[in-house]
């Protein structure tokens, strides 16, 4: 079995961000799909790994889809009709490396 390579992104939000993990991921996935399209969404295969604090969280992506995920984070300016932007602070192969940030 071939092990799929992943990348983790440390993301900080500016503005109002939903607090619930499930709600945040559902809204984020919808926006990412709108940015990259249905055909590219599978390439990213995003997952919300951890909410570090109310403004910072960690997203997981496949290695091949990391560029698209960073791009979507730059293009998303609204979540659920409310102004919300995201800064991609760091990308790494492990969550532990991101936690040091």
């Amino acid at each position: 079995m071939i092990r799929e390579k992943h990348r983790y992104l440390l993301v900080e939000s500016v503005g109002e961000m939903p607090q619930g993990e499930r709600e945040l991921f559902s809204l984020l996935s919808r926006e990412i799909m709108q940015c990259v399209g249905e055909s590219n969404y599978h390439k990213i295969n995003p997952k919300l790994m951890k909410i570090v604090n109310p403004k910072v969280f960690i997203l997981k992506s496949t290695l091949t889809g990391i560029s698209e995920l960073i791009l979507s984070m730059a293009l998303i300016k609204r979540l659920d009709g409310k102004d919300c932007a995201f800064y991609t602070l760091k990308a790494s192969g492990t969550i532990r490396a991101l936690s040091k940030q």
Partner: protein
Amino acid sequence: MDFYDLVGQDCKVSEQLAMKLGFKKIFVINKEVSAAGAGVKASEPFIAFGKDKNQLISLIKAGANAAAITDSYIDKKLMDVMKENSCILCIPMSMVTASYGMERSRNIYKIKKLFEYAEKQRIDVAFVSMAKSEHYLNSYMQLIELAKLVGASDHYARISISATNKRLIE
């Protein structure tokens, strides 16, 4: 590699925020570099802004460091003058990040064509966020991806955001 960005005069950027976003410095319009446009004369170094090609040409001949074509239309005469005067083409990525839907798609297409032409003519291109507020700021990684979206290679985008952006204030 040190990265630099340029933002609008209303955007408040602290040194700490610039460092967090991965930039060595974020320049602010009318602070580190002036903006010259319709009827506005600025002290050097300055960036020419506008869509009136004749006015942009006269500003470039007057010594503008860079020129930002706000409607993104390609004017061959203007591009020739930019090449002759080693003027940098400044591309504000806020045209992409601050628009939505069809307008965003149209802006990406226009910027892509402008960048392709500038690259062919060997005019240096600076990708800047030109954010109006901190809501439209991007980290260096996001700015690189936005540059790649409009046709730049990874290497070109990195050089543009580091060396070319630094030249905007020199």
